[in-house]
């Protein structure tokens, strides 16, 4: 993304702390909330998952199922206008809502095989690899913060609202400090 010197990402000042728990900030990730009748999902310029709590990720665009008529589309930093444009174009004649929410949540990546043990201390979901596979995503809780989790091949993505980021990082650090290494 072109450097926008006026833009500040939440958690930019806590990147080092995040690293101690195997976490990485993904600043300014493009995020667009799409709401449209699932009967028209096929009109989208990329596949939208219809199975609940799953994601389709082709590296350039990721589509996360948030509800039967709601998806979160992720793209590279700076790409939100393009995403909004391509969705408005694809659904031009259909009732829909396309809203740029890139600043509405912060993206954190948790790396390392130890991340599942760390998450198990905070998340009531079953994160066993037999059910929590690389296509899975879910809206759930980490401690008291509502988050969206997305499982990739070797990392877990966490999307959390900026106002909860300090709490979430404090919580991750506290649990990590109590139970030991996550492992990179």
């Amino acid at each position, binding site marked *: 993304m072109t450097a926008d010197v*006026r833009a500040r990402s939440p958690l930019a000042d806590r990147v080092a702390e995040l690293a101690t728990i195997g976490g990485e900030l993904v600043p*300014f990730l493009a995020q667009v909330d799409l*709401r449209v009748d699932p009967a028209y999902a096929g009109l989208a310029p990329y596949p939208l998952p219809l199975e609940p709590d799953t994601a389709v990720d082709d590296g350039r665009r990721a589509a996360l199922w948030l509800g039967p008529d709601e998806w979160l589309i992720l793209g590279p930093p700076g790409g939100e206008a393009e995403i909004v444009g391509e969705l408005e174009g694809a659904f031009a004649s259909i009732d829909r809502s396309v*809203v740029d929410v890139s*600043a509405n949540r912060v993206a954190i990546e948790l790396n390392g095989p130890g991340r599942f043990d760390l998450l198990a*201390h905070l998340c009531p979901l079953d994160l066993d690899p037999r059910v929590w596979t690389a296509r899975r995503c879910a809206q759930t809780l980490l*401690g*008291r913060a509502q988050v969206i989790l997305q499982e990739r091949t070797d990392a877990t993505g966490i999307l959390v609202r900026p*106002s909860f980021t300090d709490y979430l990082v404090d919580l991750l650090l506290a649990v990590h400090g109590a*139970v030991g290494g996550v492992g990179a």
Partner: protein
Amino acid sequence: MTGRRVDVGGAWIDRSRPIGFTFEGRELTGFEGDTLASALLANGVDVVCRSPILGRPRGIVSAGVEESSAFVQLSEPWFEPIVAVTMVNLVDGLVATGRPGVGVLPIDPLPTKPTVHRHAHVEFLVVGSGEGWHPTVGEAVQRGDRVLLVEREPRFAAASPDGVTVLTNATALGLYDDGYAVVDERGPERDTLWHVRAGRVILATGAHERPIAFADDDRPGVMLAGAVARYIRDFGVLPGQRAVIFTTNDSTREVAQTLTDAGAEIPFVADVRLGWAVAGTEGETHVEVVHLVGPQGERRAVEADLVAVSGGCNPAAQLFRAIGGGLRYDEPLATYVPDESGPDWLEVVGAAAGIGLPPCAAYWYTPAEDLSTHFVDLQRDQTVQDVLDAVGRGLRSVEHVKRATYIGTAIDQGRTSGVLTAEIVNAALGWELGAQGPTNARPPYVPVPFSVLAGMDRGPTLLDPKRTTPIHAAHVERGAVFENVGQWLRPRYFPEFEEDMESAVARECLALRTAAGVLDASTLGKIEVVGPDAAVFLDRMYTNRMSNLAVGSIRYGFMLGLDGMVFDDGVAMRLADDRYLVTTTTGGAAAVLDRFEEWLQTEWPELRVFCTSVTEQWAVVAVGGPGARDIVASLGTDVDLAAEALPWMTWRAGTVAGVPCRVCRVSFHGELSYELHVSSWHGRHVWDAVVAAGAVPYGTEAMHVLRAEKGYVIVGQETDGTVTPDDLGMGWIVNPAKGDFVGKRSLVRTDPLRMDRKQLVALLPHDPAALVVEGAQLVGSADLPKPPVPMLGHVTSSYRSTILGRTFALAMLKDGRAMHGGTVWAASNGATIACEVASAVVYDAEDRRRDG
């Protein structure tokens, strides 16, 4: 002689690893693997503490969770206010003192071990390591199921099969709906509270031996027979040299053998099935003589220092009962066993189900004329006589006897006293055995410190999230004093040069009204409402008409509950024909979005509209005051800020300070105001620019004063869920020509139309320096009459107004609008303050200042 260490037995201890500990100031030694109980017995300690009510000396009775006699307070290496000595694993440097009755907390909080909580999902949870579960577990492991085994003791009784996760020092505190179990795993460095969701739960918790009651049965040296054998076998401790065995069943044969093998003598076995019983004991602080009574009433006295008692075995079914399982009386076993009830995901196996328990004679206490020292519940100092007295007073249910005597309510939760008490009551009433069973046990299975339940949810940052805006760091740098607004942390005021709150707020208000101020309003809830039916939808949710709002315009509206009471307020900005941005109160954002979804999904699925939360997508920097236009202009903008181009309650999109911005002419204080809506990534940048341009930062306190001077209500301050728009003098906000909206029907009930409803007014104290108390009641005279005092209303907000140079308040007053010009008194702390009743708008009633 009393307890001592012996060479035989000791399977659990490591004699090569001594551990030093302190009890009642005495430095003693034990071994790794000892409990505090076994170590105390090994050191010949007879008396551990005094009984809570009667002060009688008490020693160790059991070897497990059923201990009802010997309790201590631990002060090193961690603090525990009261705990049974059988439940403490001996560690180096342990410091314990006897603790009767109730634990005491220290004045200064002591550090506790850290606790984490952890979730686990398993197909099988096995509680306890009793027999009976092996085949099921084996099959589960073969299938690849996840199996978790939790054992309260430090060791696991059997060999655990591969593929099973075993936790020791882990106690299942309770079982809850749908296989949810809470397990407290204690570790030397930290504790873990497991939240387990299990497909099936197997209870293999075994059984607890119960005693028989007789005179002075609480004397140190009277112990449960199985515990005596356990101390020898597992800890290498012989609790006494000469033991009398008192039994109803054959399980004591093995105990006798174990005692003999350890070198003890057994001068007598009193078997009730042969007509013999222990009548009482004698001794200073410990058993020295045991009195026996025979089938013909013959008396005998035996020198002994130990009485090993076995009244029978009770299945440890507390977890089963607490989740709804029932018990039935089993005559051959003379105890209660789990019946067929309980949830279908729960199975009880082994001794906990009554399997493998010895047949028993039903014998509860040795008859005597004086039953006043036949203790039934040691921790409550309650005797057989106490139970009979309760029945004698007319109580029949064991539940009532429990409340009258407190039997079963102590730490042991009736493990040794419950069945005894129930059968004594049954017999006293002439009812049959098993007519009513022991009272229910409740979770937690054993006491658990609050610090364990709290886990990481404690302290200033983790107890509850403190939500902050993207501009927060600037406020901190500026030295703001913060306040909690719901979960948000917002600047309350910005003190300069050691100002107190009153001075800071006065300065901030004056700056806003005479120059320019800036407020971080980013916490406001924001929702995008998009679709062809967006306008229709908002018309139904708000009291006013939103469908005729022009694109580029803004309208302030109320949302009511179905009961017609004010629920939330906010403004709606029309972004396009089919698009609105709706704001809500800071605290109401989630509730409003939830209610939008509720109506759309459950009542109006045919409406073509979608809602999306954008609360944190946007930062809001609110610039206000006569100098506001100049401030915004100085940042550089392509938006025409003149009043004609950008009238009050309109907005324009453009660039401000180099970033995309929606400039909104909305005011919560009556001065010229530009609310700058920018991406929250740019919030800090715009805030810094506005402050550098000379706007004075102000906080929530000044904001409250400024809006109150204009009579603007804050939902939740002037309203409390019982206030209608008309009560607030805002009947104009309800559009009568509109179709139905949420709450409309309720506004025409007789109650909202009453004449004496409380209405919003301002109060001007006769003494312009007198500050009435928020929440003060309003009364009709300076002197308070005798109660009941007629209450005319209450003060909702009270402030000092810098711009008016006087105090004022907002209040809800009965028939307030008709009372303008009259006087009421605000009463609090025994005094009254006389106030003139006035219109709620005390400043700039004609709204002349809002265009600058």
